[in-house]
């Protein structure tokens, strides 16, 4: 994170609180999905966000896209505050690719019209749109005749290519990918990852890549943020985090990646039982109920803020 670099995403104290009622007469509970996050993403870089279900990573994606106004904090995209930004201006800056292209593509609209829609919204004429669609289809490796088809006539990988073409047609600066390959077969996942890396270079994109799959994130990201119950518990350069993970949760996540190496057997998982519950964030360090290193200090006091949010980050205990 070199100073003077142009940061296209700047989050300062970003929070998202949902209110959830368990029953008709029960009082509402607060769900802290994203908790006072501050981070920056340099232009042209790729930030990978990993975490398990319920950690807030998809909520954060929706906030970055401007689909969900923040409960607190500021989010600057391309130097301008996202709050109050015109929808069309926002769409030119930042575009999404979601997990399941079947539910993010309109089943009754032809592929050509789907890809063209972001341009039409910007007021581009039909002839220009047709040319742009043909160009984008080629960019994502699809045949021109696909434009006349409907989503159900395509395979999962082809649909994801369509979603990518639709996102890139307005030439955005930032692409937010939320589990873009999780629904795909492995051989197709590799095609889509290769395509994303090619397009990232060609379109000079800034990527935010959200996934539960650490191996995929390691492959594509320059920086990695490990998210747990609404906070980045560790955030550093890709090489650092994978070579020397410092947070016990990062270490557990890394240990649980089952690489295709026979003979290694299954990893020991020193994590306690019980899944993280965003409606009931533990006091002190939010990871302490599952942490093998937890002490009295961890149960009572939140760890200092920083790149590694652990009381023992500096001493490297248990590493």
């Amino acid at each position: 994170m070199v100073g003077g670099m142009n940061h296209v995403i700047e989050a300062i104290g970003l929070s998202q609180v949902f209110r959830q009622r368990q029953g008709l007469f029960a009082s509402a509970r607060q769900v802290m999905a994203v908790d006072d996050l501050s981070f920056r993403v340099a232009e042209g870089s790729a930030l990978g966000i990993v975490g398990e279900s319920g950690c807030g990573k998809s909520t954060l994606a929706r906030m970055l896209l401007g689909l969900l106004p923040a409960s607190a904090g500021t989010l600057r995209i391309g130097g301008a505050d996202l709050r109050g930004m015109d929808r069309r201006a926002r769409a030119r800056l930042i575009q999404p690719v979601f997990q399941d292209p079947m539910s993010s593509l309109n089943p009754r609209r032809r592929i050509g019209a789907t890809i063209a829609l972001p341009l039409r919204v910007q007021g581009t004429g039909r002839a220009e749109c047709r040319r742009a669609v043909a160009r984008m289809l080629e960019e994502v490796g699809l045949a021109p005749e696909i434009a006349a088809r409907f989503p159900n006539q395509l395979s999962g990988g082809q649909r994801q290519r369509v979603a990518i073409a639709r996102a890139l047609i307005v030439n955005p600066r930032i692409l937010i990918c939320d589990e873009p390959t999780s629904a795909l077969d492995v051989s197709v996942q590799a095609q889509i990852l290769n395509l994303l890396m090619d397009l990232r270079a060609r379109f000079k994109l800034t990527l935010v890549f959200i996934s539960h799959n650490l191996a995929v994130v390691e492959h594509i990201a320059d920086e990695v943020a490990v998210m747990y119950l609404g906070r980045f518990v560790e955030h550093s350069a890709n090489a650092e985090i994978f070579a020397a993970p410092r947070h016990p949760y990062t270490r557990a996540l890394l240990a649980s990646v089952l690489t295709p190496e026979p003979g290694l057997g299954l990893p020991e998982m020193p994590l306690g039982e019980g899944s993280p519950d965003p409606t009931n964030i533990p006091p002190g360090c939010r990871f302490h109920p599952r942490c093998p290193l937890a002490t009295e200090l961890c149960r009572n006091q939140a760890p200092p803020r920083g790149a590694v949010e652990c009381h023992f980050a500096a001493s490297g205990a248990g590493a």
Partner: protein
Amino acid sequence: MNAVLEIEDLRIGFGPLEAVRGIDLVVERGQTHCLVGESGCGKSVSALSVLRLLPKRARFSAARLAFEGNDIAGLGERGMARLRGDRMAMIFQEPMTSLNPAYTIGSQMIEVLRRHRGASRAAAVDRCIAMLERVGVTAPAMRLGQFPHQLSGGLRQRVMIATALLCEPALLIADEPTTALDVTVQAQFLRLLADIQRQMGLAVLLITHDLGVVARVADRVSVMYAGRIVEHGATGAVFAAPRHPYTRGLLASIPVPGKIPPGGRLGSIPGIVPRIGAGFAGCAFRARCAVAMPACAAPVPEHRLADGHRFACHLGPDGAWSGA
């Protein structure tokens, strides 16, 4: 012979379509056999056919289908119903769809014992609690009174495996049991499965698309493509020296931290996973294969190597045209 399940020339079709085109498979006691492949390759219907849970319209035939040495291909529905949930059990990817949301965990578990063992209610409750405890469910007595939606995904998966193991089956078929779980929970669950397998001498047929899971838990692996097993062998041998171009392609397409440099290109298999068809002539993989030749349209020969390692390809073990 320690084979719990023996399958020879299993074929499954739907109307004119052939989903499974003659597979052979053996699962031995205490062993985990992984059936791996991408969507639509026929791995799940193959598993369902062992339990005879195929839809009525499916065509099904096998030269041999033996369970614990007895032929079950000709067994009627009543005979199969006695085996299912007793000597052979199955767990699925999403426990929410196989647990009935309207009944408590207890009533669903107890039913298994009352039906197969004729156990008294009190005895059944005790056994359920013991089994839940064994699979690491905390507060097991309380869980019996809970409904599936009140449990986390990891807990539901444990309840499902506890239910499957109640009658101490000889064979457990697990269809993508960890695909819906978080990675840390997946690792915990697979360890649990391995522990139980060791204690009970269980034969496990594990269906998955995840080569990482295969590498870490399988004794033997069968790679399936378009309704056929294209390569089979001991896991170590197949991963160390994959012979079929599809197996090689699959292994090259997964990112492995520390192995493939970040940003480097992943090996990928061009084209798309084929839908089940009305019969493939010759090698079904040839449209996506980097080393395909015109001759691949001819029927595919099978090559046998040491220790049961076999693969079906026109290129022989030495990589040369086998001239079949």
